[in-house]
């Protein structure tokens, strides 16, 4: 009898455990990642609308965290470096937020001339957040005359040294939308950046003033999402915007630390 009780208790516990594990799993997948449409068709967009806005930070702004430079001080330590996971500017403007359309299925094509790049300068990745179209090559620049090692995590891992003589290092194009994934340098452990491999061009990253703009959006109703390294995403409750042909919609966001 006792063993039955124990067994049922164990089953109950197991269910709870599996349940929470499952919830945590799906939850983290939703809050951490971008959401991509199942299919996207590129077409010519004429008289599209514009979505713009400002992303602001709410809450006590934590003190800037200086990074500890442990090697190659000459190149890396020339100026003081700060942790870039949360960069708050004047008027609480939040930099490095990705703002994007979650549910667009057809729209303009990528700007073929734009070549996504991340520079490694003074042992820091610039920009800190980069959008890379699926099928395009991301080029890693090395402006420091020292060795770096580009280590990109995620489903399409890259682990590739970039010697001091290698000023430009294009990387193999990624074929599936993913991200954001982190970029690290194994040689300078403090270096960090984020990449999103995206299937359509309606992605923007906020500037110092927290501003973003999405142009040439075909008229219609959309869900507008954001992602921020320290503040998370709104994938569960994205903003709804209605774009009119040739019109401009404004949508601001206020983010808190997650």
């Amino acid at each position, binding site marked *: 009898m006792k063993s039955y009780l*124990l*067994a049922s208790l164990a089953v109950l516990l197991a269910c709870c455990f599996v349940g929470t594990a499952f919830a945590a799993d799906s939850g983290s997948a939703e809050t951490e990642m971008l959401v991509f449409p199942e299919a996207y068709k590129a077409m010519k967009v004429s008289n599209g609308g514009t979505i713009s806005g400002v992303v602001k930070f709410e809450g006590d702004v934590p003190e800037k965290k200086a990074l500890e430079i442990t090697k190659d001080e000459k190149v890396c330590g020339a100026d003081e470096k700060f942790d870039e996971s949360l960069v708050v500017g004047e008027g609480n403007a939040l930099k490095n937020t990705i703002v994007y359309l979650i549910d667009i299925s057809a729209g303009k094509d990528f700007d073929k001339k734009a070549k996504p790049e991340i520079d490694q300068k003074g042992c820091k990745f610039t920009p800190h957040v980069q959008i890379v179209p699926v099928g395009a090559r991301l080029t890693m620049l090395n402006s420091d005359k020292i060795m770096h090692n580009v280590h990109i995590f995620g489903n399409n891992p890259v682990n590739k040294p970039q010697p001091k003589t290698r000023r430009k290092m294009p990387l193999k194009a990624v074929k599936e939308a993913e991200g954001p994934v982190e970029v690290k340098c194994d040689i300078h452990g403090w270096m960090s950046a984020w990449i999103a491999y995206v299937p359509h061009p309606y992605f923007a990253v906020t500037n110092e003033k927290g501003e973003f703009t999405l142009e040439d959006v075909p008229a219609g109703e959309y869900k507008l999402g954001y992602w921020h390294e320290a503040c998370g995403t709104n994938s569960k409750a994205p903003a709804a915007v209605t774009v009119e042909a040739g019109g401009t919609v404004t949508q601001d966001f206020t983010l808190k630390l997650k």
Partner: protein
Amino acid sequence: MKKLSLFTICLIILVGSWVFLRFVVGGIISVPIPGSVIAMYMGLIIIAILVHISVEDSLFREFRRPILETLVEDKRRPHRRVLVVLIPLLLLGYTYSIIAQRANPPGSPRDAHPSPPLELTYKNEVIGTMQDVVNPFRHYEKDDPEAFKAHVENGRRVYHQNCFYCHGDDLDGQGHFAPYLQPLPANFQDPGIIPNFQESFFFWRIAKGGPGLPAAGTPWDSAMPIWEDTLTKDEIWDVILFLSDYTGYQFRTFGEAH
């Protein structure tokens, strides 16, 4: 073909027996035989030869004939010259090697399975006499296979969180820490281990570890921890169930079998 002299036959028997003991028995058939054992066998063979040749005068004369010939006859002069150099040289080398030999550390005549105390204890609590204590979960094997399985699985977990570093994934005493421990960790796949002991003996060895061994076990170099400090009583019994379940060996029992 010339008939071999008795002396030569004796010589062949001696050398042949040595080769047989040293390389055939001690190499091909089985593990190397200690030098002292070989010396003993050789002594016996020499005695047998001496007995044989001294039974009859004629045999003895036949035996010593080649020796005498070599010592005095002119036709044997080349042999004599070689021997008069070779014998002293061999003796020289042999005595030198004995005198100049480096001393080696004393061995340790350790009793691998010393007799246990009469009473089985966990921490300071007396469980019963070594002879009578049985694994409290063993009866599930017949009464409640499900519960038994749960105990075995728990034993598996305990084993792999604590024991496999030394005793190995396959319970064969070849864990990744094992090669550099002396004495080597017990090999539970050895048919001479589990079937020869009661579960209470295993409980004692696990609970008290190396430090709990009696003097005959010369505990100074056993790395077996005192597991009663870390594991609960039930965990020890469970791990014992796992040991027999995984290896398929049955612990020795008294009572039921008879």
